[in-house]
């Protein structure tokens, strides 16, 4: 169960036929974020023909708006994943209700012999909500820096330093939000593991759980590397702003920021890949219970 308790297992009496509020809200939030990104893109296109010195102010706030929009859509992804957790548990309750009839087995007293949660599951369940709170806050700080940059005169050192800091802060914020999404995916994997065991225990069958595949460890490694790289680029950008000639630093720290986001996205691919595997395994197990009764 999450730290804030606003998402997790619904009571067994919850209406499984009700619409998902998370789904409706998530789609609205995503479209709002996409509109913000589109507005910032328009600003970029409009000023791209202006003289370089004249367009810097617009580019400063457009970057802030654009990254904020991307962060809003990422929050929508997180909202949708919360909805998936709730619906997965409703599905577990439905399968538990139907399985005795389908397998011709009596309901059994649930045992506690299910698999113990892995450390990564416990970490994910604890960490997703603080990370999800931090990501947008850091992005908001980055937007503040973008606004401060717009107030400076283009071409000055202060303008360049604030620009570098703003970009580093915005990338760090996106990295933290992607980290939160990764932890929610870890929570989904944990729910699948617990729910699968619970369904099997409910009909007194032997509990079979899929072994932890190597993709899970690759996911954890990529996620950690991504968050560390995002933090490193932010720290190094802060250092670079104090240098007399920061251009050579900025030339590789910008790509390092995108690299860190890429590592987090790669971790998310593997987490979703693993979820696909686990779902397939669980369907096979239910089919086995129905067909063979054990």
């Amino acid at each position: 169960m999450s730290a804030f308790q606003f998402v997790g297992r619904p009571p067994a009496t919850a209406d499984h036929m009700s619409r998902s509020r998370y789904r409706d809200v998530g789609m609205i939030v995503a479209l709002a974020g996409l509109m913000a990104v589109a507005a910032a893109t328009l600003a970029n296109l409009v000023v791209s023909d202006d003289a370089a010195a004249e367009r810097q102010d617009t580019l400063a706030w457009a970057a802030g708006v654009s990254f904020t929009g991307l962060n809003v859509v990422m929050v929508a992804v997180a909202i949708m994943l919360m909805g998936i957790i709730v619906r997965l548990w409703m599905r577990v309750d439905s399968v538990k209700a139907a399985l005795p009839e389908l397998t011709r087995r009596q309901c059994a007293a649930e045992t506690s012999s299910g698999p113990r949660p892995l450390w990564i599951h416990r970490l994910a369940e604890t960490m997703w909500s603080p990370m999800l709170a931090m990501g947008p806050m850091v992005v908001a700080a980055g937007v503040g820096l973008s606004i401060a940059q717009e107030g400076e005169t283009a071409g000055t050192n202060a303008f360049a330093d604030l620009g570098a800091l703003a970009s580093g802060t915005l990338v760090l914020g996106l990295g933290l939000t992607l980290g939160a999404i990764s932890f929610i995916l870890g929570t989904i994997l944990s729910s699948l593991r617990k729910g699968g065991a619970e369904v099997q225990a409910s009909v007194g069958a032997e509990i079979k759980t899929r072994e932890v595949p190597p993709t899970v460890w690759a996911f954890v490694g990529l996620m950690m590397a991504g968050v560390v790289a995002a933090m490193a680029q932010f720290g190094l950008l802060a250092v670079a702003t104090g240098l007399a000639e920061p251009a050579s630093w900025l030339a590789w720290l910008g790509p390092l920021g995108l690299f860190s986001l890429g590592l987090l996205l790669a971790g998310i691919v593997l987490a979703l890949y693993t979820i696909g595997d686990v779902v397939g395994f669980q369907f096979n197990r239910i089919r086995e219970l129905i067909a063979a009764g054990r």
Partner: protein
Amino acid sequence: MTTASIKTALAHRSAEHRAEFEVERSRVSPGYDRVQKVARLMVLPSLAMGLMGIAGGLGIGIARATEITDGGSAATIAELQHVQQGVTFIGLAFLFAGISFAIARILGAFRKGGGDIQLAAGRTVEILRRPLTGWAFLGLMMMAMMTVLASSALHFVFAADITGSASSLAEADDRFTALAGVERLGLGMYLTAIVFGLATIVHVLRYQARRVRQLADEGPARV
């Protein structure tokens, strides 16, 4: 509330749900659809391409930093800036495609698994038709991929166009500014596509929670 009114309310609600969940009926398990088959094949290659792209982008960024430190020509530095951005965004496009394919793969697991279970229980196989969010997921994902890949290709074209004159360098900077916005819009579209893909998973989970309870009440399918 009387028993009759409860029955009426339940019947009304059931009709609403039938309208909300359009299904296909069959006597065999449907397996994966064409999109899901492609997605199952493409997840890991997309991931590999994506990782190569972002690593290549970082490498080019380091090469550009070295060029700046060594006092290289302004034209080379501007060319490397365009090439680096193009390579990195190709990598990000493939990583987002990998996420989209992985979501389609999960949807495939639900489709095939749901059909297999209904078949194993000897019931009529009912498979949810692709909802609107599923179509929006596919459409947005393809638009996003085209947007990001087209802007990456333009980076390479513009890099080749740089001559080293002041006007050419200024034009390269203008073009970089315009493409930066387009790329971010592409990423926003990708993320929105992912939201619609996940919304489709929520829809499928809701349908399956209802269908599995129906299975217990239904009799075996007539052959």
